[in-house]
């Protein structure tokens, strides 16, 4: 019986010929990513032995630059841990820092065909790299770092096949909102993406779509590896790797086609990501206080380019805040060189350093009582970005930027007419 990509990677990493739904796979972890929350004084459990420091990555991202003394203490613990065990891949506040999933992407730490774990829930972001990556809990991270292992229940797989290409002004976030709106949660299931239309989505768009798989409650979210992906990884990581394509006779719980050319910009209404998408026209005119573009889902260079394209030569509406957070400091520098940062600043946006801050309601853009926000980030749960009475709509960076200009939710179409996608 053939295997899906997820099954193939888990079988390979557990040294068995095959795994199937219902099995528990105990696998070798190729990459274990620790983020700064792990080192908070209240939650840190001192690690006495590290299985292999070369497989560990440490990224400070939720609490940067340190907003509190407690956060600063966590960073000190993380630095001391890296020094004690010789973990060289430490992404401290400075030029190499960023949101952990974006750093993993920038550096191609997630190798195709391997397993990656991270204590942050949006870890399936690395599935864009044909990597079996899953957000796990604190104890899983201790287990992985000290033993090099992780366990997974093998679930059934839903396969999505893309055809066509996206219309102008429609982006990967809209693909996600389409799937989340139509098919809802994928609890205990894997999501796999491929098909002839996949190439047109691009690596950054795949990252958005893979990251948002967390909101589908999927186990693993994995894209097929194409030539563009293999080239991307080879340019950034010298380690050998072997992509894991699905077998032609792989068994899926369901197989669904998505014609990209038929999609339109969507918005998720407040309080839930799945089963909650509507066309922009249904909520157009809804007044907003804040517009946010960033996070592990929408802080890529393509996202900043889309935002800059929409606001170029225009002004953010009076009384509305547009906050933009690049995914990494490297992306920030690239956006600066490309002129996007200047365009955004000229329009009246605030461009923050790379941090998870606003997305989880930590800092750098938290919401006050009864405020309304439209966000291109990961979650719109009640209270997610600050006060529980705030309302959070979710959309693509282009829709969020268009809304910032209008001071109310707006369709981005007019800014893209006549473009090539």
């Amino acid at each position, binding site marked *: 019986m053939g295997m899906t990509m997820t099954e193939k990677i888990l079988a390979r990493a557990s040294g068995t010929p095959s795994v199937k739904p219902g*099995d*528990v796979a*105990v696998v070798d972890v190729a990459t274990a990513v620790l983020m700064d*929350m792990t080192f*908070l*004084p*209240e939650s*840190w*459990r*001192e*690690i*006495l*032995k590290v299985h292999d420091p070369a497989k560990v990555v440490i990224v400070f991202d939720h609490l940067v630059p340190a907003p509190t003394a*407690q956060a600063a*203490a966590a960073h*000190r*613990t993380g630095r*001391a841990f890296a020094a004690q065990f010789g973990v060289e891949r430490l992404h401290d506040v400075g030029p190499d820092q960023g949101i952990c999933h974006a750093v993993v992407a920038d550096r191609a730490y997630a190798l195709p065909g391997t397993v990656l774990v991270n*204590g*942050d*829930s949006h870890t399936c972001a690395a599935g864009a790299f044909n990597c079996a990556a899953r*957000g*796990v*809990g*604190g*104890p*899983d991270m*201790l*287990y992985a770092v*000290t*033993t090099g292992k992780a*366990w997974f*229940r093998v*679930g059934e797989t839903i396969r999505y096949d893309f055809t066509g290409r996206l219309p102008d002004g429609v982006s990967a976030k809209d693909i996600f909102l389409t799937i989340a709106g139509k098919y809802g*949660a994928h*609890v*205990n299931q894997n999501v796999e993406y491929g098909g002839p239309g996949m190439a047109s989505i691009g690596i950054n768009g795949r990252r958005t779509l893979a990251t948002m798989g967390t909101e589908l*409650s999927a*186990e693993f979210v994995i894209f097929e590896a194409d030539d563009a992906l293999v080239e991307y990884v080879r340019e950034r990581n010298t380690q050998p790797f072997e992509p894991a394509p699905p077998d032609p006779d792989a068994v899926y719980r369901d197989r669904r086609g998505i014609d990209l050319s038929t999609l339109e910009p969507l918005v998720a209404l407040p309080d*839930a990501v799945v089963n909650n998408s509507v066309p922009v026209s249904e909520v157009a005119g809804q007044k907003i206080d804040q517009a946010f573009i960033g996070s592990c889902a929408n802080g890529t260079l393509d996202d900043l380019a889309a935002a800059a394209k929409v606001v170029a030569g225009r002004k953010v509406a009076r009384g509305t805040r547009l906050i933009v957070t690049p995914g990494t400091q490297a992306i920030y520098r690239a956006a600066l060189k490309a002129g996007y940062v200047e365009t955004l600043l000229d329009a009246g946006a605030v461009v923050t350093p790379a941090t998870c801050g606003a997305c*989880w*309601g930590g800092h750098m853009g938290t919401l006050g009582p009864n405020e309304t926000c439209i966000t291109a980030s990961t979650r719109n*749960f009640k*209270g*997610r970005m600050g006060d*529980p009475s705030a309302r959070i709509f979710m959309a693509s960076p282009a829709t969020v930027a268009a809304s910032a200009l209008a001071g109310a939710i707006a369709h981005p179409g007019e800014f893209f007419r006549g473009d090539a996608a």
Partner: protein
Amino acid sequence: MSGNNMLAGRVWRFGDNINTDLMLPGPYLVRSEEDQAKAVFTTNRPEFLREMRRGDVIIGGFNYGMGSSRPAARSLRNCGVGFLLAETINGLFFRNSVNHGFKAFECPGVTQAFEEGDTAELSIEDWTATNRRTGQTLAVTPVPKMLLDMMLGGGILPVLEAQGLIAPRHAEVST
């Protein structure tokens, strides 16, 4: 495992998509484990912690525990919840249940079969859940032995401690 495989408790019913933030609110992420256990369901059901007794049971709907990697299962264990039965359990919440030694099982049909205040009986040997009031018995989805042993044995941390891989919880930590 004997003595541990038959459990019973009073039922608290919850709906679908109960998220981690309700069990462990964001502001408590930077607080102690003990403080976190005092925040369970404080925003959606403030009477829960006041009125619950040790061993009480949570009956949940679909995708119980959706959301973040935060140790919400640990808070349920620490505040004294006996076990959870839900239609489906979010994968990340289930991992944290296994790893923190909180008993959490999938039981299709469970939300229809139990009313608030009923007594639920769970047999981890027969993989059944019974409503003592109605006598109705449902099948519980078995958890693979390796994971069940970890769940019933108090989670993964005692194992790592015993192997000398991590320090005991209250060890002095240099910051």
